[in-house]
Structures are given as structure tokens and as C-alpha cells.
């Protein structure tokens, strides 16, 4: 379970998170929506302890992330797969080595045979060709890099997956493949996931719940149905921008 209570974060004078309350139950898939620059990435980074809140509490598995000791944080991080918005692939390494580093269990990481099998499997899951493994990130297109980032995050079979805009910049076919992957990891392996996205259609297809972050707060969260029926102006504005005039039977 991921619990975020009253989290505030500012950079200099700029208040980015202004009291965020957000809980994700085990096994749930939650889509985190919101306009660019509202702090969605900043919020995700709090969960893995890359950014520390000014006040409030962030708990994963009941453990306060900001209070963990070095080794405990390391152990926690190896149960969380993080998909970076821009891939964040290690550009001095091949795709194979990148994904292999995602295998967080040290014994398995040393077992080359296991690694080859696991990497091949993760590459196939994101619909990349097997020969991509020998390429360097610079030789790939943006969409391919993104999918390698997802491969790396799932390679260690994490309990939690945090996706930062996994489908932005992908073509519709690959977007759907990623959405389906997110869905199947959640239903088949019971992975708990948060997916930051701009793609409202994808969010409705995949998520059990949605949450909208604007002006540093979660202004609305709930099931897709509840979300569609929301009367909160920010939600209406966000939905209408994406769906235009199409009306849904809520």
C-alpha cells in the first residue's frame, strides 16, 4: 500500500505540492492525471525517496520512506519499478545491460542464463524486437527508448510499478500495448501501480481509479464512473479538453 498524507513540497519560492493526500491499495492501478508542470513527477519521486517532502508523510508498505536507513531504502527501492518520463536509460550500456540492471535480486543478476531469459522476456512484453537487445539507447527512437525503460522497470518483478507518462510519444498501437501490459501486470501478477498520464482514454481503459492533481492538490479521485460524473470544475475542464464534445453515459 502506498500512502501519501498532507505532503507539501516547494522548490525555492515555488510551491509544487500543497498538501497531497493520496492512497493506493495493494493490487490497485491508479491513473494520476494533471496538466504539465503540476508536480506529478515530483509526487512519484517522493514514493521512491528521490525527493524528500518538506512536510507530510509518504509510506510504502507501512514504512515511512523519508525515515528509512540506507539499506532499508535500498531494499524498498528494489521492490518498486520506476519508469522515468524520458527513459533515463544508461547510454553507455546496451539495451540488454540496461534491462539486466533492472534485475534487482543479486543472485539472479549474477546468473547470466537467467538474465538472458528474463531480458528476452521483458523485451518481448513491451513489443520490441529481440535484436534491440544489442543496440545502444542512442540508436533507438524515442518510443523504443520508452519501452526499454518499462522493460527495465519490470525486469526485477517489482511489487509496485510507478509509470511516469509511459505512453506519451508512442503511436496508438504501442500505446495500447503498453496500456494492456500495465493492466495484465496488475491483474496477473497483482502489481500495484500508479500511472501518470496525459492520455485520458488510456487512463479510463486501464485504471481502477483515477486521480487529478492540480495546483498542488488532488482535487478529485475515484472510479472512472465517479470521475466522469464529477462536477469539480477542474475535472470537467480536463475531461472536456480531451474528449471534446463526445458525451459518455456515466
Amino acid at each position: 500500500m502506498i500512502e501519501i498524507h498532507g505532503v507539501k513540497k516547494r522548490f525555492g519560492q515555488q510551491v509544487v505540492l500543497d498538501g497531497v493526500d493520496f492512497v493506493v491499495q495493494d493490487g490497485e492501478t491508479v491513473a494520476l492525471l494533471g496538466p504539465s508542470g503540476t508536480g506529478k513527477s515530483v509526487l512519484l519521486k517522493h514514493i521512491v525517496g528521490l525527493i524528500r517532502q518538506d512536510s507530510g508523510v509518504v509510506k510504502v508498505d507501512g514504512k515511512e520512506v523519508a525515515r528509512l536507513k540506507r539499506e532499508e531504502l535500498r531494499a524498498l527501492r528494489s521492490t518498486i519499478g520506476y519508469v522515468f518520463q524520458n527513459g533515463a536509460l544508461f547510454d553507455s550500456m546496451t539495451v540488454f545491460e540496461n534491462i539486466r540492471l533492472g534485475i534487482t535480486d543479486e543472485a539472479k543478476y549474477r546468473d547470466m542464463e537467467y538474465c538472458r531469459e528474463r531480458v528476452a522476456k521483458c523485451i518481448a512484453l513491451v513489443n520490441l524486437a529481440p535484436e534491440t537487445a544489442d543496440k545502444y539507447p542512442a540508436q533507438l527512437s524515442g518510443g523504443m527508448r520508452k519501452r526499454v525503460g518499462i522493460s527495465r522497470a519490470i525486469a526485477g518483478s517489482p511489487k509496485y510499478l510507478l509509470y511516469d507518462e509511459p505512453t506519451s510519444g508512442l503511436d496508438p498501437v504501442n500505446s495500447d500495448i503498453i496500456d494492456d501490459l500495465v493492466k495484465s501486470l496488475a491483474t496477473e501478477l497483482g502489481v500495484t501501480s500508479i500511472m501518470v498520464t496525459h492520455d485520458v482514454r488510456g487512463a479510463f481503459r486501464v485504471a481502477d481509479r483515477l486521480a487529478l492533481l492540480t495546483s498542488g492538490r488532488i482535487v478529485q479521485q475515484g472510479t472512472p464512473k465517479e470521475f466522469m460524473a464529477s462536477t469539480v470544475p477542474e475535472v470537467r475542464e480536463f475531461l472536456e479538453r480531451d474528449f471534446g464534445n463526445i458525451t459518455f453515459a456515466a
Partner: protein
Amino acid sequence: MTATTFDLRRPAGRFVLGALAHIGRLSLLVAEMIRGLSEVRIWFPLAMTEAWKVGVGSIPIILLVAGFAGAVTALQTGYQFSGNIPYYVAGSLIVESVVLELGPVLTGLILAGRIGARYAAELGTMRVTEQIDALETLGRSPASHLIVPRVLAGLVMIPALTVIANVTGIISGWVAVQAVLPVTDYDFTYGARFFWRPFDAYYSVIKGFSFAVCITVTSCYFGFSTEQGAEGVGKSTTGAVVASCVMILLLDTLLAKLLLH
């Protein structure tokens, strides 16, 4: 007091606070690095490849610069020689100048540009493209994957390159001095040995090693604390090189004062 009066206390205070903050963060990085040393299985292979890249790659420029430095020292020695100085003194002068000063300092300054800039740019790029964050989210230590291999590679290769520079400078000085003065090989080696103390060799290597510490730690620190995109990478790269060079010159003076009597 009018507004136009320039109050020095404020910028001075800011400078001191800034410097203290740097020192604090630098100490944290060094502490991380020492902790990272325990993961030998991770850093050892990376350090070997890094050493190969920075060490072997730097040999040509070191040969070039040390070769010219030795030759120029010889030519100037010839220019300053007057009739009543024995010729063997040229051998002493050239060897001592190269080993005590030119070899280590030129190597240090050049490698601040070659290795320091490379480290700062690599790590800075990894920082701004979130590769360092990614490493952390994978439960891996950036210190043992990125810093320890680079620092150790530099600590081994920079003193080694200093030795290569010394040998090159001496040989080229030896050859060049014969073009301007009637110094025989016997004079040269006699003079070289006349003033030579084994300590001079240690001193040269100690200098090389201290410069290596400066260059590697400074550049890793600058790279790690990079902010804001391509411009940030540029800033930390030049910052790393300038800071390393200044520190090399300061250390050079300090070591001469402390160790040469």
C-alpha cells in the same frame, strides 16, 4: 549610509556560506565513495575499463607536451649558460626541473582538462538525464557504479602518466641540449646523478597522486551536482576544470613548501 556605498560584508558572508555548503556536500560525496568501496565486485571491472580509457587515451598528449617541455627547458638552459659553468650542470638542471615541476604539473593541468572535463561532463549528463536517479531507484549505489571506478582509475593512471611524462621530458631534454651546448652523454648522466636524490622521484609521484585526488574528486563532485540541462553540464565541466587547475597550482606551492628543504 547611502545606497551607493558598497557593503562588502554581505557578499563576503554569502561567499563563506556558499563555500561551507560546498565543503559539506563534498564531504558527503567522499563519505558515499568510501562506503561504495565495499562493493568491490561492482567497481573493480568498471575501474579497469575506465583506467584503460583515461590512461591509454591520455598517453599521446602527455608524450607530446612532456616532449616539448623537456626540449624547451634544454634550449633555455643553453641560452642561459655562460662560459664558466661546467656542462654537467645542464644535466642536473633539466632532470630536476622536469621531475620536480614540469612533469607532474603539466601532466596535472592537462589531465584536469582531459580526465576532469570528461568525468564532469559524463556524470553531469547522467545527472540531468536522470540516469543517476534511475540507478538509485534500481537499488544500486551511484557511488560504487560511477564514482569509485572513476576516482580509482584516475588515482592509478595520473601518477603513472606523471612518470611517463618525466621520462619523456628527460629524454627530449637530453637530446635537445646537445643541439645548443657541447654536453656529452657522460656530462648529462653525471650531472643528473650529481644532484639526484631518490626522494625526488617520490616527490614527483606524490605530486602526481595529490593532483589525481584533486582532479578526480573535484570533477566527480561537479558532475554530480549538475543542475538544469545542457547549460548546467557546460557549467559544471568548465567549473571542474578551472577548480582542479587552481587547486593543482595551490597544492604545487604548498607541497614545495612542505616537502622540499
